[in-house]
Protein backbone atom coordinates (compact mmCIF):
# COMPACT_ATOMS: atom_id res chain seq x y z
CA UNK A 1 0.00 0.00 0.00
CA UNK A 2 2.83 2.35 0.90
CA UNK A 3 6.23 1.96 -0.70
CA UNK A 4 9.13 4.17 0.26
CA UNK A 5 12.32 3.67 -1.71
CA UNK A 6 15.63 5.31 -0.89
CA UNK A 7 14.02 8.56 0.18
CA UNK A 8 16.29 11.35 1.38
CA UNK A 9 15.56 14.93 2.31
CA UNK A 10 18.19 17.63 2.51
CA UNK A 11 17.44 20.96 4.23
CA UNK A 12 20.04 23.56 3.39
CA UNK A 13 22.81 20.99 3.15
CA UNK A 14 21.70 19.02 6.24
CA UNK A 15 20.34 15.54 5.68
CA UNK A 16 17.20 15.23 7.79
CA UNK A 17 16.17 11.94 6.17
CA UNK A 18 18.87 9.71 4.78
CA UNK A 19 18.08 6.89 2.36
CA UNK A 20 14.98 5.48 4.04
CA UNK A 21 13.18 2.50 2.51
CA UNK A 22 10.22 0.56 3.86
CA UNK A 23 6.89 -0.88 2.82
CA UNK A 24 3.56 -1.00 4.54
CA UNK A 25 1.04 -3.62 3.44
CA UNK A 26 -2.68 -3.09 3.31
CA UNK A 27 -4.27 -3.33 6.73
CA UNK A 28 -1.03 -2.90 8.62
CA UNK A 29 -0.38 -0.38 11.37
CA UNK A 30 3.21 0.77 11.14
CA UNK A 31 4.78 2.53 14.10
CA UNK A 32 7.37 5.11 13.28
CA UNK A 33 9.60 5.44 16.24
CA UNK A 34 12.51 7.74 16.88
CA UNK A 35 13.91 10.43 19.16
CA UNK A 36 13.31 14.15 18.56
CA UNK A 37 14.71 15.34 15.28
CA UNK A 38 14.98 11.83 13.87
CA UNK A 39 13.10 12.78 10.71
CA UNK A 40 9.65 11.30 11.41
CA UNK A 41 7.70 14.43 10.56
CA UNK A 42 9.82 15.06 7.50
CA UNK A 43 9.15 11.55 6.17
CA UNK A 44 5.43 11.95 6.76
CA UNK A 45 5.38 15.29 4.99
CA UNK A 46 6.98 13.67 1.98
CA UNK A 47 4.41 10.88 2.00
CA UNK A 48 1.52 13.34 2.21
CA UNK A 49 2.82 15.42 -0.73
CA UNK A 50 3.39 18.44 1.48
CA UNK A 51 7.01 18.60 0.44
CA UNK A 52 9.08 16.78 -2.15
CA UNK A 53 11.88 14.39 -1.32
CA UNK A 54 15.34 15.39 -2.45
CA UNK A 55 16.06 11.86 -3.64
CA UNK A 56 14.14 8.62 -3.93
CA UNK A 57 10.51 7.82 -4.60
CA UNK A 58 7.45 7.09 -2.53
CA UNK A 59 4.19 5.54 -3.71
CA UNK A 60 0.84 5.28 -2.02
CA UNK A 61 -1.71 2.86 -3.44
CA UNK A 62 0.48 2.68 -6.51
CA UNK A 63 0.53 6.44 -7.12
CA UNK A 64 3.77 8.37 -6.96
CA UNK A 65 3.58 11.18 -4.38
CA UNK A 66 5.40 13.49 -6.75
CA UNK A 67 3.89 12.57 -10.12
CA UNK A 68 0.31 11.83 -9.09
CA UNK A 69 0.05 14.05 -6.07
CA UNK A 70 -3.70 14.70 -6.45
CA UNK A 71 -4.49 10.98 -6.64
CA UNK A 72 -2.41 10.37 -3.53
CA UNK A 73 -4.08 13.22 -1.69
CA UNK A 74 -7.50 11.78 -2.48
CA UNK A 75 -6.54 8.60 -0.66
CA UNK A 76 -4.89 9.85 2.50
CA UNK A 77 -5.98 11.28 5.81
CA UNK A 78 -3.24 13.26 7.48
CA UNK A 79 -2.88 14.50 11.01
CA UNK A 80 0.07 16.91 10.99
CA UNK A 81 2.24 17.39 14.05
CA UNK A 82 0.29 20.56 14.92
CA UNK A 83 -3.44 20.10 14.32
CA UNK A 84 -4.25 22.37 11.35
CA UNK A 85 -7.22 24.24 12.80
CA UNK A 86 -8.82 27.47 11.66
CA UNK A 87 -9.01 29.13 15.04
CA UNK A 88 -12.17 31.16 14.40
CA UNK A 89 -14.34 28.24 13.28
CA UNK A 90 -16.51 25.97 15.39
CA UNK A 91 -15.61 22.29 15.50
CA UNK A 92 -18.61 21.39 13.40
CA UNK A 93 -18.14 24.05 10.73
CA UNK A 94 -14.43 23.25 10.58
CA UNK A 95 -15.10 19.57 9.97
CA UNK A 96 -17.72 20.48 7.41
CA UNK A 97 -15.18 22.66 5.61
CA UNK A 98 -12.58 19.90 5.57
CA UNK A 99 -15.21 17.44 4.31
CA UNK A 100 -15.92 19.82 1.44
CA UNK A 101 -12.32 20.31 0.38
CA UNK A 102 -11.75 16.57 0.64
CA UNK A 103 -14.52 16.13 -1.86
CA UNK A 104 -17.13 14.43 0.33
CA UNK A 105 -20.46 14.44 -1.51
CA UNK A 106 -22.86 17.11 -0.22
CA UNK A 107 -25.45 14.52 0.80
CA UNK A 108 -22.99 12.54 2.90
CA UNK A 109 -21.32 15.48 4.52
CA UNK A 110 -23.53 15.80 7.55
CA UNK A 111 -23.49 12.11 8.38
CA UNK A 112 -19.73 11.85 7.88
CA UNK A 113 -19.09 14.83 10.12
CA UNK A 114 -21.35 13.36 12.79
CA UNK A 115 -19.59 10.07 12.41
CA UNK A 116 -16.09 11.42 13.08
CA UNK A 117 -17.40 13.61 15.89
CA UNK A 118 -18.67 10.48 17.55
CA UNK A 119 -15.53 8.44 16.85
CA UNK A 120 -13.30 11.07 18.39
CA UNK A 121 -15.62 11.88 21.29
CA UNK A 122 -16.19 15.47 20.26
CA UNK A 123 -19.93 15.61 20.93
CA UNK A 124 -19.52 17.95 23.89
CA UNK A 125 -17.54 20.55 21.99
CA UNK A 126 -19.12 20.38 18.55
CA UNK A 127 -20.28 23.99 18.61
CA UNK A 128 -17.25 25.43 20.41
CA UNK A 129 -14.63 27.58 18.68
CA UNK A 130 -11.60 25.42 17.83
CA UNK A 131 -9.14 28.14 18.85
CA UNK A 132 -10.47 28.08 22.42
CA UNK A 133 -10.26 24.31 22.92
CA UNK A 134 -7.72 22.63 25.18
CA UNK A 135 -4.68 20.97 23.61
CA UNK A 136 -6.14 17.48 23.85
CA UNK A 137 -9.41 18.50 22.22
CA UNK A 138 -7.55 20.29 19.43
CA UNK A 139 -5.64 17.09 18.84
CA UNK A 140 -8.89 15.13 18.65
CA UNK A 141 -10.38 17.59 16.18
CA UNK A 142 -7.22 17.17 14.11
CA UNK A 143 -7.66 13.41 14.20
CA UNK A 144 -11.36 13.67 13.33
CA UNK A 145 -10.42 15.77 10.32
CA UNK A 146 -7.99 13.09 9.13
CA UNK A 147 -10.72 10.43 9.27
CA UNK A 148 -13.11 12.37 7.04
CA UNK A 149 -13.85 10.85 3.65
CA UNK A 150 -12.76 7.50 5.00
CA UNK A 151 -9.28 7.49 3.42
CA UNK A 152 -7.51 4.22 2.60
CA UNK A 153 -4.31 5.41 4.18
CA UNK A 154 -3.97 7.31 7.45
CA UNK A 155 -0.79 9.16 8.27
CA UNK A 156 -0.81 10.31 11.86
CA UNK A 157 2.01 12.38 13.33
CA UNK A 158 2.00 11.74 17.07
CA UNK A 159 -1.76 11.13 17.31
CA UNK A 160 -1.86 10.80 21.09
CA UNK A 161 0.20 13.89 21.86
CA UNK A 162 -1.40 15.90 24.65
CA UNK A 163 -4.24 13.51 25.37
CA UNK A 164 -5.26 12.31 28.84
CA UNK A 165 -4.82 8.61 29.68
CA UNK A 166 -8.44 7.74 29.04
CA UNK A 167 -8.32 9.42 25.65
CA UNK A 168 -5.00 7.80 24.79
CA UNK A 169 -6.62 4.47 25.49
CA UNK A 170 -9.69 5.37 23.40
CA UNK A 171 -7.67 6.66 20.48
CA UNK A 172 -5.46 3.58 20.47
CA UNK A 173 -8.55 1.40 20.42
CA UNK A 174 -9.89 3.54 17.60
CA UNK A 175 -6.67 3.16 15.61
CA UNK A 176 -6.68 -0.59 16.14
CA UNK A 177 -10.26 -0.68 14.91
CA UNK A 178 -9.32 1.36 11.86
CA UNK A 179 -6.63 -1.15 10.97
CA UNK A 180 -9.28 -3.53 9.67
CA UNK A 181 -9.84 -1.57 6.51
CA UNK A 182 -7.23 1.15 6.58
CA UNK A 183 -3.48 1.24 6.37
CA UNK A 184 -1.97 3.37 9.10
CA UNK A 185 1.41 4.96 9.72
CA UNK A 186 1.76 6.65 13.07
CA UNK A 187 4.75 8.28 14.65
CA UNK A 188 5.40 8.37 18.35
CA UNK A 189 8.01 8.52 21.05
CA UNK A 190 5.85 6.49 23.36
CA UNK A 191 6.94 2.88 23.37
CA UNK A 192 3.94 1.13 24.91
CA UNK A 193 1.91 2.75 22.16
CA UNK A 194 3.88 0.87 19.57
CA UNK A 195 3.57 -2.52 21.22
CA UNK A 196 -0.13 -1.94 21.75
CA UNK A 197 -1.21 -0.62 18.38
CA UNK A 198 1.33 -1.54 15.73
CA UNK A 199 1.98 -4.70 13.76
CA UNK A 200 5.35 -3.45 12.74
CA UNK A 201 7.87 -0.88 13.92
CA UNK A 202 10.39 1.17 12.03
CA UNK A 203 12.91 2.82 14.29
CA UNK A 204 14.75 5.75 12.81
CA UNK A 205 17.54 7.79 14.25
CA UNK A 206 19.29 10.76 12.67
CA UNK A 207 17.40 10.17 9.45
CA UNK A 208 18.37 6.51 9.07
CA UNK A 209 16.38 3.34 9.62
CA UNK A 210 18.09 1.46 12.45
CA UNK A 211 15.60 -1.36 12.90
CA UNK A 212 12.45 -2.73 11.35
CA UNK A 213 10.48 -5.64 12.80
CA UNK A 214 7.40 -6.59 14.79
CA UNK A 215 7.45 -5.17 18.33
CA UNK A 216 8.12 -8.63 19.79
CA UNK A 217 10.61 -9.58 17.16
CA UNK A 218 12.47 -6.39 17.81
CA UNK A 219 12.70 -7.07 21.51
CA UNK A 220 14.04 -10.55 20.82
CA UNK A 221 16.40 -9.56 18.05
CA UNK A 222 17.97 -6.92 20.22
CA UNK A 223 18.48 -9.12 23.18
CA UNK A 224 20.19 -11.51 20.79
CA UNK A 225 19.35 -14.20 23.31
CA UNK A 226 16.62 -15.55 25.46
CA UNK A 227 17.08 -14.71 29.07
CA UNK A 228 15.96 -16.68 32.07
CA UNK A 229 15.98 -15.53 35.63
CA UNK A 230 16.43 -18.16 38.37
CA UNK A 231 16.43 -17.93 42.11
CA UNK A 232 18.23 -20.88 43.65
CA UNK A 233 18.95 -21.96 47.22
CA UNK A 234 22.47 -23.31 47.26
CA UNK A 235 26.19 -22.42 47.25
CA UNK A 236 26.46 -19.47 44.89
CA UNK A 237 29.76 -20.25 43.12
CA UNK A 238 28.95 -23.88 42.56
CA UNK A 239 25.50 -23.09 41.28
CA UNK A 240 26.86 -20.59 38.83
CA UNK A 241 29.48 -22.92 37.43
CA UNK A 242 26.92 -25.65 37.08
CA UNK A 243 24.52 -23.41 35.19
CA UNK A 244 27.27 -22.08 32.94
CA UNK A 245 28.28 -25.61 31.99
CA UNK A 246 24.86 -26.41 30.51
CA UNK A 247 24.86 -26.67 26.75
CA UNK A 248 23.35 -23.54 25.11
CA UNK A 249 24.03 -21.18 28.01
CA UNK A 250 26.05 -18.17 26.97
CA UNK A 251 26.49 -16.31 30.15
CA UNK A 252 25.43 -16.44 33.79
CA UNK A 253 25.30 -13.46 36.08
CA UNK A 254 24.63 -13.69 39.75
CA UNK A 255 22.95 -10.73 41.37
CA UNK A 256 23.30 -9.94 45.06
CA UNK A 257 21.93 -12.66 47.30
CA UNK A 258 18.18 -12.27 47.48
CA UNK A 259 18.07 -13.76 50.96
CA UNK A 260 20.82 -15.23 53.11
CA UNK A 261 20.63 -18.59 51.48
CA UNK A 262 19.40 -17.93 47.94
CA UNK A 263 20.77 -16.02 44.96
CA UNK A 264 19.14 -14.80 41.75
CA UNK A 265 20.92 -15.56 38.48
CA UNK A 266 20.28 -14.18 35.05
CA UNK A 267 21.08 -16.76 32.45
CA UNK A 268 21.50 -15.77 28.81
CA UNK A 269 20.73 -18.59 26.43
CA UNK A 270 21.34 -19.00 22.74
CA UNK A 271 18.68 -17.41 20.56
CA UNK A 272 15.71 -19.64 19.88
CA UNK A 273 16.45 -22.19 22.56
CA UNK A 274 14.16 -22.65 25.49
CA UNK A 275 16.32 -24.01 28.30
CA UNK A 276 13.91 -23.44 31.15
CA UNK A 277 13.18 -27.11 31.81
CA UNK A 278 16.83 -28.08 31.36
CA UNK A 279 17.87 -25.46 33.86
CA UNK A 280 15.19 -26.52 36.32
CA UNK A 281 16.19 -30.17 36.04
CA UNK A 282 19.86 -29.32 36.57
CA UNK A 283 19.09 -27.42 39.74
CA UNK A 284 16.73 -29.99 41.17
CA UNK A 285 19.00 -33.01 40.50
CA UNK A 286 21.74 -31.26 42.48
CA UNK A 287 19.38 -31.10 45.43
CA UNK A 288 19.26 -27.29 45.51
CA UNK A 289 16.04 -25.46 46.10
CA UNK A 290 14.50 -23.81 43.04
CA UNK A 291 12.52 -20.86 44.35
CA UNK A 292 11.76 -19.05 41.11
CA UNK A 293 12.27 -19.41 37.39
CA UNK A 294 10.97 -17.16 34.63
CA UNK A 295 11.86 -15.95 31.16
CA UNK A 296 12.90 -12.32 30.88
CA UNK A 297 12.14 -10.39 27.74
CA UNK A 298 13.90 -7.18 26.99
CA UNK A 299 11.46 -4.31 27.05
CA UNK A 300 10.99 -2.12 24.03
CA UNK A 301 12.45 0.70 26.06
CA UNK A 302 15.71 -1.19 26.41
CA UNK A 303 15.72 -1.92 22.71
CA UNK A 304 15.06 1.66 21.81
CA UNK A 305 17.69 3.16 24.08
CA UNK A 306 20.09 0.47 22.97
CA UNK A 307 19.56 1.22 19.31
CA UNK A 308 19.70 4.96 19.39
CA UNK A 309 22.60 5.32 21.77
CA UNK A 310 24.71 2.80 19.88
CA UNK A 311 26.86 4.63 17.37
Amino acid at each position, binding site marked *: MIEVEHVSKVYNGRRAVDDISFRVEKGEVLGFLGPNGAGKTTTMRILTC*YMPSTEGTARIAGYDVFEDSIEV*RRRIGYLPENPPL*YMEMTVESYLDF*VARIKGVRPRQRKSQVNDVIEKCNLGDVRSRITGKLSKGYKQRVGLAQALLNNPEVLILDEPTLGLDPKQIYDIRTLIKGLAENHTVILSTHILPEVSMTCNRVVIINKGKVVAMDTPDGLARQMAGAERVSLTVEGPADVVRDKLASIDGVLNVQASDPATETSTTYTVECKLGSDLRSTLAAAVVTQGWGLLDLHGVSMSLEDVFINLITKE
Partner: protein
Amino acid sequence: MQNILAIWQREMKSYFVSPVAYVVLTIFLFLCGLFFFGGLAQLVQISISQAQMGGQIPIDVPREVTSYLFRTMALILLFLVPMLTMGLFSEEKKRGTIELLLTTPVGNSQALAGKYLASLTFLVVLFAASAITILPLFVYSQPDWKPILSGYFGMFLYGAALLALGLFISTLTENQIIAVFITFGVSLVLWVIALAGEWAVGSARSIIEYLSVIGHLDDFIKGVIDTSHIIYYVTFAFVGLFLAYRSLESMRWKG
Protein backbone atom coordinates in the same frame (compact mmCIF):
# COMPACT_ATOMS: atom_id res chain seq x y z
CA MET B 1 -15.75 24.17 -8.08
CA GLN B 2 -16.95 22.84 -4.74
CA ASN B 3 -13.44 23.50 -3.43
CA ILE B 4 -13.38 27.09 -4.66
CA LEU B 5 -16.77 27.73 -3.12
CA ALA B 6 -15.75 26.15 0.19
CA ILE B 7 -12.58 28.23 0.39
CA TRP B 8 -14.41 31.39 -0.68
CA GLN B 9 -16.99 30.88 2.05
CA ARG B 10 -14.41 30.20 4.70
CA GLU B 11 -12.48 33.35 3.79
CA MET B 12 -15.63 35.46 3.82
CA LYS B 13 -16.54 34.18 7.27
CA SER B 14 -13.04 34.76 8.50
CA TYR B 15 -13.16 38.39 7.26
CA PHE B 16 -16.32 39.04 9.17
CA VAL B 17 -15.48 37.28 12.43
CA SER B 18 -12.17 39.12 12.71
CA PRO B 19 -12.10 42.87 13.26
CA VAL B 20 -10.40 43.40 9.89
CA ALA B 21 -13.62 43.64 7.90
CA TYR B 22 -15.17 46.16 10.27
CA VAL B 23 -12.04 48.26 10.58
CA VAL B 24 -11.63 48.41 6.81
CA LEU B 25 -15.32 49.17 6.21
CA THR B 26 -15.41 51.87 8.86
CA ILE B 27 -12.23 53.59 7.73
CA PHE B 28 -13.36 53.42 4.14
CA LEU B 29 -16.82 54.86 4.73
CA PHE B 30 -15.56 57.50 7.14
CA LEU B 31 -12.92 58.75 4.71
CA CYS B 32 -15.29 58.60 1.74
CA GLY B 33 -17.80 60.68 3.67
CA LEU B 34 -15.14 63.10 4.83
CA PHE B 35 -13.76 63.65 1.35
CA PHE B 36 -17.21 63.87 -0.15
CA PHE B 37 -18.06 66.82 2.05
CA GLY B 38 -14.56 68.20 1.72
CA GLY B 39 -14.90 68.09 -2.04
CA LEU B 40 -18.31 69.64 -1.91
CA ALA B 41 -17.11 72.47 0.31
CA GLN B 42 -14.24 73.18 -2.05
CA LEU B 43 -16.62 73.36 -5.00
CA VAL B 44 -18.82 75.79 -3.15
CA GLN B 45 -15.76 77.98 -2.52
CA ILE B 46 -14.77 77.86 -6.15
CA SER B 47 -18.22 78.69 -7.43
CA ILE B 48 -18.53 81.59 -4.99
CA SER B 49 -15.22 83.10 -6.04
CA GLN B 50 -16.07 82.53 -9.68
CA ALA B 51 -19.40 84.29 -9.21
CA GLN B 52 -17.62 87.21 -7.56
CA MET B 53 -15.24 87.49 -10.48
CA GLY B 54 -18.16 87.31 -12.85
CA GLY B 55 -17.07 83.96 -14.26
CA GLN B 56 -19.30 82.40 -16.88
CA ILE B 57 -18.22 78.75 -16.89
CA PRO B 58 -20.89 76.67 -15.19
CA ILE B 59 -19.57 73.94 -12.94
CA ASP B 60 -21.01 70.41 -13.27
CA VAL B 61 -21.18 69.89 -9.52
CA PRO B 62 -22.11 66.16 -9.40
CA ARG B 63 -19.42 65.30 -11.90
CA GLU B 64 -16.74 67.23 -10.04
CA VAL B 65 -17.79 65.67 -6.76
CA THR B 66 -17.78 62.09 -8.05
CA SER B 67 -14.47 62.40 -9.82
CA TYR B 68 -12.96 63.89 -6.66
CA LEU B 69 -14.49 61.05 -4.67
CA PHE B 70 -13.10 58.36 -6.98
CA ARG B 71 -9.63 59.84 -6.84
CA THR B 72 -9.64 59.81 -3.06
CA MET B 73 -11.11 56.32 -3.02
CA ALA B 74 -8.16 55.15 -5.08
CA LEU B 75 -5.84 56.64 -2.48
CA ILE B 76 -7.75 55.06 0.42
CA LEU B 77 -7.66 51.66 -1.29
CA LEU B 78 -3.90 51.92 -1.46
CA PHE B 79 -3.94 51.67 2.33
CA LEU B 80 -6.80 49.25 2.74
CA VAL B 81 -6.07 46.60 0.10
CA PRO B 82 -2.99 45.33 1.97
CA MET B 83 -5.20 44.75 5.00
CA LEU B 84 -7.56 42.63 2.93
CA THR B 85 -4.84 40.39 1.52
CA MET B 86 -2.39 40.18 4.43
CA GLY B 87 -3.95 37.09 5.98
CA LEU B 88 -4.86 35.15 2.87
CA PHE B 89 -1.84 32.88 2.84
CA SER B 90 0.44 34.15 5.59
CA GLU B 91 -2.10 33.22 8.24
CA GLU B 92 -2.36 29.70 6.81
CA LYS B 93 1.40 29.38 6.93
CA LYS B 94 1.63 30.64 10.47
CA ARG B 95 -1.16 28.46 11.83
CA GLY B 96 -0.03 25.38 9.90
CA THR B 97 -3.37 25.08 8.12
CA ILE B 98 -1.43 25.32 4.86
CA GLU B 99 -0.40 21.75 5.65
CA LEU B 100 -4.08 20.79 5.48
CA LEU B 101 -4.75 22.80 2.33
CA LEU B 102 -1.78 21.34 0.46
CA THR B 103 -2.42 17.74 1.44
CA THR B 104 -6.11 17.61 0.50
CA PRO B 105 -7.08 17.26 -3.15
CA VAL B 106 -7.43 21.03 -3.53
CA GLY B 107 -5.41 22.30 -6.44
CA ASN B 108 -3.24 25.36 -5.94
CA SER B 109 -5.26 27.21 -8.53
CA GLN B 110 -8.48 26.42 -6.67
CA ALA B 111 -7.07 27.63 -3.39
CA LEU B 112 -5.93 30.82 -5.09
CA ALA B 113 -9.24 31.32 -6.87
CA GLY B 114 -11.27 30.89 -3.68
CA LYS B 115 -9.17 33.38 -1.78
CA TYR B 116 -8.91 35.90 -4.58
CA LEU B 117 -12.66 35.82 -5.16
CA ALA B 118 -13.25 36.39 -1.45
CA SER B 119 -11.09 39.51 -1.51
CA LEU B 120 -12.86 40.72 -4.68
CA THR B 121 -16.20 40.15 -3.00
CA PHE B 122 -15.11 42.28 -0.11
CA LEU B 123 -14.09 45.00 -2.54
CA VAL B 124 -17.57 44.95 -4.05
CA VAL B 125 -19.04 45.21 -0.56
CA LEU B 126 -16.90 48.30 0.03
CA PHE B 127 -18.06 49.89 -3.20
CA ALA B 128 -21.68 49.10 -2.47
CA ALA B 129 -21.30 50.76 0.91
CA SER B 130 -19.60 53.80 -0.61
CA ALA B 131 -22.62 54.33 -2.84
CA ILE B 132 -24.26 55.83 0.24
CA THR B 133 -22.10 58.91 -0.18
CA ILE B 134 -23.06 59.23 -3.83
CA LEU B 135 -26.80 58.75 -3.39
CA PRO B 136 -27.46 62.28 -2.11
CA LEU B 137 -26.34 63.56 -5.51
CA PHE B 138 -29.31 61.79 -7.04
CA VAL B 139 -31.63 63.37 -4.55
CA TYR B 140 -30.54 66.95 -5.26
CA SER B 141 -29.56 66.75 -8.91
CA GLN B 142 -29.57 64.56 -11.99
CA PRO B 143 -25.96 63.42 -12.28
CA ASP B 144 -24.85 61.58 -15.36
CA TRP B 145 -24.93 57.80 -14.72
CA LYS B 146 -22.19 56.95 -17.13
CA PRO B 147 -19.10 58.38 -15.43
CA ILE B 148 -20.26 56.99 -12.12
CA LEU B 149 -20.64 53.47 -13.50
CA SER B 150 -17.46 53.61 -15.52
CA GLY B 151 -15.72 55.11 -12.48
CA TYR B 152 -16.77 52.17 -10.33
CA PHE B 153 -15.75 49.79 -13.08
CA GLY B 154 -12.31 51.37 -13.22
CA MET B 155 -12.04 51.31 -9.43
CA PHE B 156 -12.92 47.63 -9.44
CA LEU B 157 -10.20 46.85 -11.98
CA TYR B 158 -7.72 48.94 -10.04
CA GLY B 159 -8.66 47.21 -6.77
CA ALA B 160 -8.52 43.78 -8.40
CA ALA B 161 -4.99 44.49 -9.61
CA LEU B 162 -3.79 45.57 -6.16
CA LEU B 163 -5.51 42.59 -4.52
CA ALA B 164 -3.69 40.18 -6.83
CA LEU B 165 -0.42 41.83 -5.87
CA GLY B 166 -1.29 41.51 -2.17
CA LEU B 167 -2.28 37.89 -2.63
CA PHE B 168 1.11 37.13 -4.14
CA ILE B 169 2.94 38.86 -1.32
CA SER B 170 0.97 36.97 1.33
CA THR B 171 2.30 33.70 -0.12
CA LEU B 172 5.83 34.87 0.59
CA THR B 173 5.74 35.37 4.34
CA GLU B 174 4.05 33.96 7.38
CA ASN B 175 4.03 37.38 9.02
CA GLN B 176 0.91 39.43 8.32
CA ILE B 177 2.51 42.73 9.30
CA ILE B 178 5.35 42.18 6.86
CA ALA B 179 2.79 41.28 4.20
CA VAL B 180 0.93 44.56 4.84
CA PHE B 181 4.05 46.70 4.59
CA ILE B 182 5.47 45.05 1.51
CA THR B 183 2.13 45.17 -0.31
CA PHE B 184 1.68 48.81 0.63
CA GLY B 185 5.25 49.65 -0.31
CA VAL B 186 5.08 48.03 -3.72
CA SER B 187 1.69 49.61 -4.48
CA LEU B 188 3.00 52.99 -3.40
CA VAL B 189 5.98 52.70 -5.71
CA LEU B 190 3.62 51.90 -8.58
CA TRP B 191 1.66 55.01 -7.63
CA VAL B 192 4.43 57.54 -7.33
CA ILE B 193 6.26 56.20 -10.34
CA ALA B 194 4.07 58.62 -12.29
CA LEU B 195 5.99 61.50 -10.67
CA ALA B 196 9.25 60.03 -11.87
CA GLY B 197 7.76 59.99 -15.33
CA GLU B 198 7.59 63.77 -15.32
CA TRP B 199 11.37 64.04 -15.23
CA ALA B 200 11.96 61.37 -17.82
CA VAL B 201 11.96 62.04 -21.52
CA GLY B 202 11.03 60.19 -24.68
CA SER B 203 10.06 56.55 -24.58
CA ALA B 204 11.29 56.18 -20.99
CA ARG B 205 8.62 58.64 -20.04
CA SER B 206 5.85 56.81 -21.80
CA ILE B 207 6.93 53.47 -20.34
CA ILE B 208 6.98 54.87 -16.82
CA GLU B 209 3.62 56.48 -17.33
CA TYR B 210 2.22 53.25 -18.65
CA LEU B 211 3.39 51.39 -15.53
CA SER B 212 1.77 53.84 -13.15
CA VAL B 213 -1.17 52.21 -11.51
CA ILE B 214 -3.33 55.36 -11.21
CA GLY B 215 -2.65 56.88 -14.61
CA HIS B 216 -5.07 54.38 -16.11
CA LEU B 217 -7.90 55.44 -13.84
CA ASP B 218 -8.47 58.95 -15.20
CA ASP B 219 -10.35 57.95 -18.32
CA PHE B 220 -12.70 55.69 -16.37
CA ILE B 221 -13.48 58.52 -14.00
CA LYS B 222 -14.22 60.81 -16.94
CA GLY B 223 -16.67 58.24 -18.23
CA VAL B 224 -14.48 56.86 -20.97
CA ILE B 225 -13.97 53.12 -21.14
CA ASP B 226 -10.81 52.44 -23.06
CA THR B 227 -9.76 48.81 -23.65
CA SER B 228 -6.08 49.65 -23.30
CA HIS B 229 -6.69 50.54 -19.65
CA ILE B 230 -8.72 47.40 -19.11
CA ILE B 231 -5.89 45.39 -20.59
CA TYR B 232 -3.42 47.09 -18.26
CA TYR B 233 -5.32 46.21 -15.08
CA VAL B 234 -6.24 42.71 -16.21
CA THR B 235 -2.62 42.01 -17.11
CA PHE B 236 -1.51 43.42 -13.76
CA ALA B 237 -3.93 41.14 -11.90
CA PHE B 238 -2.95 38.18 -14.03
CA VAL B 239 0.75 38.67 -13.33
CA GLY B 240 0.00 38.89 -9.60
CA LEU B 241 -2.03 35.69 -9.66
CA PHE B 242 0.55 33.91 -11.77
CA LEU B 243 3.35 34.85 -9.36
CA ALA B 244 1.20 33.68 -6.44
CA TYR B 245 0.60 30.40 -8.25
CA ARG B 246 4.30 29.88 -8.87
CA SER B 247 5.07 30.75 -5.29
CA LEU B 248 2.61 28.10 -4.06
CA GLU B 249 4.03 25.53 -6.46
CA SER B 250 7.52 26.21 -5.23
CA MET B 251 6.35 25.73 -1.64
CA ARG B 252 5.34 22.23 -2.55
CA TRP B 253 8.27 21.31 -4.70
CA LYS B 254 11.25 23.16 -3.31
CA GLY B 255 14.33 21.01 -2.76
